[in-house]
């Protein structure tokens, strides 16, 4: 990637981000439920800004989680949703709600972030355990299969727990489980997400060369001076926390964490010094754009859950990656 191409890539990313933000800011609904494309009234300015902040932070967190997982596993198909982290968070948050329903709401102090983090870590651990295969090395496709199954089971667990909840608690959890972009994000969750995202970007750029070196075989990265076990531990923790905060804020969203890193690398190249920040920007752009797009759906049935848009747009992308043999072509 020449310096000139990289510069063009940065310009493209910024333009698309600004366009997505403008789009989301201007799009809305009139009294009749028809979509409008005008400067918002003073009430809706606040709402739209809130939604923009939520989408910006959650998108960046998911995409950062994705790029760290892809680096950790040297697998371009890895992402927090595909490896079951999002569903793991979902299940643990549902469990926390359930415990809160039994033991009183004080059990939920600190919001959904803590249970979400536990869930993401657990899910990643189980996925890695079963995805390792017998040869010692990690086969990319087995890992993805393992993750998909872990995700499915965790999502089923989440539904089961949701079903056990008292009726009045169900709707809020069910809405969150389909994915949402909160117009009035919970301050504590938003602040923690912001801190996590900026820490992730900072650490990623600072240790860019180390992350690049993780792209070599384990023997090679170790012998050029990388403490492979330690770096892997950081990547596991970092990607889990990032996936968890995004899930706590917006629910389990599919494929943003997969497409973001690919979009970033195709714009600014594979070196982490550049691609970590670019991945955060790409993820934000994607989620903001998805949030804008759902306003165009007919309003009579209520607003389309954001998770639907993400899955509809992201699923085909994953299949194309699979078809192109991305997992095999990644390493040489």
């Amino acid at each position, binding site marked *: *990637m*020449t310096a000139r191409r990289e510069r063009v890539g940065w310009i493209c990313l910024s333009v698309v981000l600004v366009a997505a933000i403008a789009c989301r800011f201007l799009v809305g609904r009139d009294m009749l439920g028809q979509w409008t494309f005008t400067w918002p009234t003073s009430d809706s300015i606040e709402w739209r800004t809130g939604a923009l902040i939520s989408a910006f932070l959650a998108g960046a967190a998911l995409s950062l989680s994705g790029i760290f997982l892809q680096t950790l596993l*040297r697998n371009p198909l890895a992402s927090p949703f595909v490896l079951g982290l999002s569903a793991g968070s979902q299940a643990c948050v549902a469990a926390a709600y359930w415990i809160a329903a039994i033991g009183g709401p004080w059990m939920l102090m600190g919001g959904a972030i803590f249970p979400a983090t536990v869930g993401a870590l657990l899910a990643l651990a189980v996925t890695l355990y079963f995805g390792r295969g017998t040869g*010692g090395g990690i086969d990319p496709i087995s890992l993805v299969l393992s993750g998909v199954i872990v995700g499915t089971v965790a999502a089923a667990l989440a539904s089961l727990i949701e079903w056990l909840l008292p009726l009045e608690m169900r709707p809020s959890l069910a809405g969150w489980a389909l994915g949402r972009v909160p117009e009035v994000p919970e301050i504590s969750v938003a602040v923690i997400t912001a801190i996590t995202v900026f820490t992730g970007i900072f650490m990623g750029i600072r240790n860019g*060369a*180390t992350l*690049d*070196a993780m*792209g*070599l*075989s384990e*023997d*090679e990265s*170790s*012998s*050029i*001076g*990388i*403490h*492979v076990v330690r770096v892997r531990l950081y990547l596991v923790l970092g990607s889990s926390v990032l996936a968890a905060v995004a899930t706590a804020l917006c629910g389990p969203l599919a494929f943003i964490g997969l497409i973001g890193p690919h979009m970033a*690398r195709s714009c600014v*190249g*594979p*070196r982490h010094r550049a691609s970590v920040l670019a991945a955060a920007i790409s993820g934000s752009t994607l989620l903001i754009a998805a949030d804008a797009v759902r306003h165009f759906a007919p309003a009579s049935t209520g607003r389309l859950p954001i998770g639907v848009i993400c899955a509809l747009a992201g699923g085909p992308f994953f299949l194309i990656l699979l078809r192109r043999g991305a997992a095999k*072509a*990644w*390493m*040489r």
Partner: protein
Amino acid sequence: MTLKFEQALIRNGNFVLGQIDLQFRAAAVTVVIGPNGGGKSTLLRAAAGLLAAHAGHARLQCEPSQSARAEKLSTTSARMLTSEMEIAKIMPSQRARLLSFVPQRPESVAGFSVRTSVELGRVAMRADAPRVQLSMERTGIAALAEELVGHLSEGQRHRVAFARALAQRTAQTQLLIVDEPTSALDPSWTRTLAAELRHSASEGLAVIVATHDFAFAGAIADDVVALSQGKITAAGRAMEILTPHILQPIFNVPFRMVEHLAANPLCLPMWNGAINAT
């Protein structure tokens, strides 16, 4: 500096190598030979500190060189260097200064340029652009510097990995370990590589190379270690080991000395009868 294996037992999955008593000389090329599955790669990975000795020791013993002092090492790391060190217990960032390792099948992210991939050799130390450029020139890949690794042939990728090992070198570097380098290489690059390995030895490094290529082995070896079924079957100076009566029982193939291919006679496997025998 010497790298010493004492009563070492090394486990690599189900495979056990041992017990190994060996000493690798500085300023010499040691060639490791042996049938497939004999333990060559296991020995090399243990020498590189990537596998710990299950029992016994694999130690690196070195003196702080003048140049190491010139690099203004902190006193603790200078003191550490004077003592004997279990090679697998040295921190990777420190070990990277002492040795470089080229595996049999190097891997790199396909989207990296050749230059980026070679620069990774210096990830744990000061960046050194002239050194990176020189490494690429000496391995004949300078013209490919901006090419993507994914577009290269296997042999070219091997050169990239070797260039990375050259770029990694510091004033403290004591060891160069290369696992089966010649399998994907054309004759011209094999000759260049042989010259590079001899050059590294002449600079004072202990060079350890595993290979199945007996012409290559005979051309570069000072010492030879023969491994089969996880045991050392022969070890010593090249001219004593690379002889038909030692190699024949190890590989179960007839060997013969051939003159005029290199400075010294080479001991090569014979083809007579191979085709009819099967």
